[in-house]
Each structure stands twice: as structure tokens, then as C-alpha cells.
């Protein structure tokens, strides 16, 4: 008889003492002085004709990507930003990459989740099917929770067909008066990035449709060149989150270097973003959630942002 990996994970977490759930450490480093635990590893089931995959949270993203790609599918877990992390790390942080405009946010990929609460209980949320409104949406709550409400043990994810083709283009001489015009002439691009001078566009789909889109861009005065990938964001480590409608003004009035995700509102910058205002009632909801799920604040202590305490 095999050991149930979720029950075994819960037993290791136990009911007392601080614990840190270790992924690959590519997103968040462990604090060092806390007992570390690895999440279950491995793909439990992959159903290409259901477009679902179930796997342990400790499964490497690259391993998952390989298995899905064999059947022409992928799962959107922000891999462009962190290709080498774990599934659990991707879900716990909920961090998106710059294909969000076309592929949607990471939070929409999670169908079912098994977590271990700070009380040591195994809790399931969601369901294994691609559509489900049975009960409250624990899955959305867990994505981006940094494991502070529950240590993620296993997830079922929604997969998508790999695009027939992916093409990055760079477009020169795009100023604030032309960026909206560029976006208006694109049909559902996967990404539009812009630094105030140069635009980068990612188009995914049928090669003929991509070619037609490039011609349409040229017809409207946007000469474009194929680019190996999008812009290099490595030198812009900080993320500002602003309303998409404020992006043009933000880039034009920038201080320092920026590259903005047009239509999304993430601005990659070399400047630290200002602290955001918090609302007392929102803080109260956060506190009550954590009081219930992890009353002793023993899961991933210190992980997360200012609201998660």
C-alpha cells in the first residue's frame, strides 16, 4: 500500500511550531531559522481530453511543462517570469508573467486545491472539473496567499492547447500618442510592452493570422521586426501595479527606466514602488481569515506582503 502523500505532508507539518514550505527557492528564500518541509512531488494524473492535470505542489514547473508539451498543451503559471520554480511556489505567490494580457492571470488556472491549514487539517477547495461553482472559492483565495492560509499540497490545474505559433515583434518610434492606436489594431495580442519609445508585441496563433496582423500593423504605419523574445526585464526588478488607463501617463512622466505591460497595468521599473494605502475593513478580513486558517501564524512566517500578517 502506498502512503497518501497529502496525509504524509500534513503529518510532517503537524499542529505546532513554525514551518516553511520549501519550493525551489526561485521566488522567495526561506528564512533559515524555521523548520522546512518539502511539498509532495509528481504528476498524479494528466487528462489531455479533459484539459486538466493534477500534481503535487513540489513538482518542478519544467517537469510539468515537458509532460504537457508532449500532448501539445501548457498550463499558465507565469513560467516566463520564473521557469524553474515549483507548481506550489507559482500558485502560492500567484505571480504573473508578461503574457498575462493574452493568457490571463495565474489565478484562473487553478481548479482544485488541497492544503494543510495551520491547525494541521487537510482541506480541499474547488473540484476536478473545468467548470464548478460548488461552494465558496477557496482556490482563488489560495492563489497568491503565500501559503499563509494553508500549505499547498496538491492542485488540479486547467491546461490549454499550445499556440500553433508564437512571434515577438519590436515596433520602433511608438510614443504616447501612438500606443493606443497600436493596441487598437491588434486582435487579442498575448503581450504589448512599451517603454515610451519602443513597443514589443507578442502574437500567438495561426501563422497566417500572425502574418496578416503584421501586414495590418505596417498598413497603419507600425513597421515591425521579428524579435527573439520580448524586452529584457532583468534590469527592471520592481513591479508597479497601476490601472491600465493610467499607463501612458505613467510612462511619459516616468522617473528612471520603465517598461509597461499595456492593457494590464504592470510597470517594470528600476524604482521601488510606493507603499499602497490599506483599508481597515480589508485588514480586518485578512486578520479574521488568518485567525481561522492559521491562528498561531505558523505557516510560512514572514512570507507575503503588508496585508498578510
Amino acid at each position: 500500500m502506498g502512503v497518501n502523500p497529502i496525509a504524509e505532508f500534513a503529518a510532517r507539518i503537524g499542529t505546532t511550531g513554525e514551518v516553511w514550505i520549501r519550493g525551489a527557492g526561485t521566488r522567495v528564500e526561506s528564512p533559515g531559522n524555521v523548520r522546512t518541509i518539502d511539498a509532495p512531488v509528481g504528476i498524479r494524473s494528466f487528462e489531455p481530453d479533459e484539459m486538466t492535470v493534477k500534481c503535487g505542489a513540489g513538482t518542478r514547473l519544467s517537469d510539468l511543462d515537458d509532460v504537457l508539451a508532449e500532448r501539445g498543451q501548457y498550463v499558465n503559471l507565469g513560467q516566463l517570469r520564473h521557469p524553474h520554480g515549483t507548481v506550489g511556489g507559482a500558485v502560492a505567490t500567484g505571480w504573473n508573467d508578461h503574457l498575462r494580457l493574452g493568457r490571463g492571470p495565474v489565478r484562473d488556472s487553478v481548479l482544485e486545491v488541497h492544503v494543510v491549514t495551520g491547525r494541521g487539517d487537510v482541506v480541499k477547495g474547488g473540484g476536478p472539473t473545468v467548470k464548478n461553482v460548488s461552494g465558496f472559492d477557496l482556490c482563488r483565495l489560495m492563489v497568491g496567499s503565500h501559503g499563509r492560509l494553508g500549505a499547498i499540497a496538491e492542485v488540479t490545474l486547467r491546461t490549454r492547447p499550445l499556440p500553433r505559433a508564437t512571434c515577438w515583434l519590436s515596433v520602433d518610434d511608438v510614443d504616447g500618442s501612438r500606443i493606443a492606436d497600436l493596441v487598437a489594431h491588434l486582435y487579442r495580442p498575448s503581450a504589448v510592452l512599451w517603454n515610451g519609445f519602443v513597443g514589443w508585441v507578442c502574437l500567438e496563433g495561426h501563422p497566417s493570422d500572425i502574418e496578416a496582423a503584421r501586414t495590418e500593423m505596417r498598413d497603419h504605419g507600425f513597421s515591425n521586426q521579428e524579435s527573439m523574445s520580448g524586452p529584457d526585464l532583468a534590469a527592471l526588478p520592481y513591479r508597479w501595479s497601476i490601472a491600465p488607463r493610467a499607463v501612458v501617463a505613467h510612462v511619459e512622466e516616468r522617473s528612471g527606466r520603465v517598461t509597461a505591460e499595456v492593457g494590464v497595468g504592470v510597470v517594470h521599473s528600476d524604482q521601488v514602488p510606493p507603499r499602497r494605502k490599506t483599508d481597515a475593513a480589508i485588514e480586518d478580513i485578512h486578520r479574521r481569515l488568518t485567525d481561522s486558517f492559521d491562528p498561531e501564524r505558523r505557516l510560512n512566517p514572514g512570507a507575503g506582503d503588508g496585508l498578510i500578517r
Partner: protein
Amino acid sequence: MTDAVLEALRSAIGSDGVRHNDAELRLFAHDASNLVGEAGVVCYPRSVDDVRRVIDVCRHFGIAFVARGAGTGLAGGATPIGGAVVICTTKMNRILDVDVTSRLAWVEPGVLNLDLTRHVGRFGLHFAPDPSSQQSCSIGGNVANNSGGPHCLAEGVTSAHVLACDVVLSDGSLVRLGGEEPESEGFDLRGAFVGSEGMFGVVTAICVRLTPDPLDVRTMLLDFETVRAGTDTVSAIIAAGMVPAALEMMDRLCLQAVEAYIHAGLPTDAAAALLVEVAGAPSAVAADAEAIERIGRQHGARTVRIARDEDERMLLWKGRKNAFGAIARIKPNYYLHDTVVPRRHLSDVLDHVYRIATEEDLMVLNVFHAGDGNLHPLLVFDKREPGVLDRVHRAGAAIVEVSVAHGGVLSGEHGIGLEKRDFMPLMFSEQDLRAQAWIREAFDPLGLANPFKVLPSPSGCGDAHAHVEGLWV
């Protein structure tokens, strides 16, 4: 409802916003389900301040409140229990702002789903969730139920299209969950709120994502000699790496009923027909349509009818979206179910559905979202027939049980409400349900927002034995 409460509500939002006559109380004692409760009073707020004032009165007197949009829900989610205050949002129906460039809109909760799509159509945009009730259901209700619709196969359900909700909590505070900005701090409270069936608070404004209209659309009708050939085609299409915009199925009885109603030339001798729509950029649409036709024929499709123009496309969709109107010609009453099963089990579960209906001597029609495995067995009956309601309820329970036994879930888009509340333990353990109660308590520690729904053991509120006429099990 005491005179003191009525007086407090009238002075809070004005006499014309507070209704207490027998006709309206009866009308608001239920939603579109068969589940009848008891409305204490009906309030029509016109603004977020009105909503706050009504909730302040409810809190002061310790009375529960139930938010209600258009009342098209099918699970009793908006059915008030024990004389609750009904907060009807139909007069909060303004489209507040449309940002065409950023493709988002702010709306009040009473805006009807299709009205938003019509409003933004001139910009080449639409609101993707499209329940069959989209002409009459409200976006506030869509948020409460995390509603779906045929086109959610490719585009995702309501949660994927809601960026922010302004919500009045039961303590009277107004909070913004999520935001136009993409990365809010803290937990995804927006995501938790969508689908909370009115139990976390009352939404007063919603920021939705708008979707560009496709450049090209191809709508096809494929018909089959067996239901299994049709469902196998569904699985093969998905396995081939396509996610059509919609993938809908109707069985023979449904085809016959709809054809008698709309005269669209549907194949009434087929065991099942698939309505498939592919949408997007032209070359992808052409390639997918060709592949789907090939896969259909490989699986025994007798005919593949491709809509030649927009009129024919609309006619095919009219058949699908008006199936429930057509049913009224067969019997005066119907009970519409909503479960989801893995696609590969569609045929087996449908066999069980037909068996269950035969055993209970009921007529069943099936019209459903095959692409995402979302079944909608429709039991038709005449409630004047002695004992028929018991048989309908037994058949419904059996359908839910067989769906879950095949790895499915209780509801794909109608929600749990009262209808399936007591089935929740089929899917969730005690600990799972306790965790769901924690989420509710975090938003509504007073337990005043739409109590007694979704969770089988009411939490945070005392009246555990409220009687609801028509409640199952």
C-alpha cells in the same frame, strides 16, 4: 416585520423604496426556482448610500438581508428565509463608465448582462459570460453565482471577467475588493467574493473586463445516431488541441421540442446534435472548423451543417438559447438540473440520467454545455399530477449523486443556494465545509448576509430550522 423596522427603513431610503404589500412579498419570496421562503419587506436602493442605510437598519434590529438582482437564479440563492429583508438592486442599473482602450467597464449590480454587451457592441466589445438568461439576469447576480454560459468554455466563467467589486459588508463598511490595477496586495478577496451567493455582502459596483468581438465566427451543427458518438466527438475535439468558443449538445427530445417551437430545420430524427462555434482570427477559425468537421465525420456525424450567414447562425443559437421556452409546449412545469462531470463520462452519466427518468416515470430532455461537461437534465412534468413532485425530487437527487460518483461536481453554474446545500457533504468533508464557513465569517462575522444558504450547517446565525417550502431532502 415590525412597524419599527418598516419605519426605520422608510426614513433611511424613503417610502417609495420600501414595499410591504402582499403581492410584492409573495413575488419576492422566491427566485426562479421552486423554493419558496418568506420575504419580510422589499427594499429598492438607488445608490450605495441607500444600501448602507438599509444594512445599518438590518444590523440595528438584527435582521438578515438577501441581495437580489433579477431573480433568475435557479438554486434558491435569492429566496429569503424567515422574513429577511430583500435588497433588490434593479434600480441600481447604470453603466457607470466604459474604458474602450483598457477594455473594462464599471457597472451597478442591476445592469442586465445583455444590456452591457449591447452598450459596448459599437466598440467591437462584449461581456463574455452569457448565461441562457442573459436577456434578463443582472451582472450583480452573475457575480453572486459566478455564472457561466455557452461561451465560457473558451473565455472562462464570471470570475475571470471581474476585476473589482465594491461591496457593503454587514458591518456597514464599504470595501473595494480587487481593483483596476492588476496586482492587489493581500489575499484575492475579489476571487473569494465572486460566487459567494450573497453571503459575504452586497455588491454595489462591479468592474468587468470586456472582450473583443472575434474577427471571424463559424457555427456548425453536427448530428449523430447515438449520444455516445456525439460525446466522443466532444472529447476528440478537445484532445486535438482545440477549445471552440462553444460546444453545446441537445438530445433527440430536446431537438424535437425546439424544432416544433422555432422551425430551424433541426435534425429531429438524430439521437443528439452538437452545436459548435469556433471564433477568433480567420485562419485559425478556418483550420479549426475543418478539423472539427473531419473529427465529427470520423465519429459518425450524419450531417455537418455550417451556418452560411449571421441569420442562420442566430437561428441555430435561438434554438439553443430558447430550449427552455420550447419545453413549455410539452408540459407546464420543468425542473432544470446543473451538474458537471469529466467529459469522458458524459455518455455513461447520460445513460444513468435516462434510466433514472424512466424509473421515476418522468420525461427528461438534455440540452447542455458538452464542452465543459456541464449537464443540464431538464425534467418536465405537470405539478397537478398527484405525487409527481416527489418523483421529480427523487430523480434530481439521483442525478446529483450519479454525477458526483463519476468524479463530477454539484453545480457548474447555477450555484448551491438552498437547492443543493444539503448535498454539499457528497463533495466536501466536514473540514472542507468548516473552511468555507471561515471564509464567510471573515466577510460577515454577524451572519446577516443571506444566511442558511450553501453551507449545510448554518454558521454565525441562530435560526437553524427555518422552513422553506419546496426544499429538497
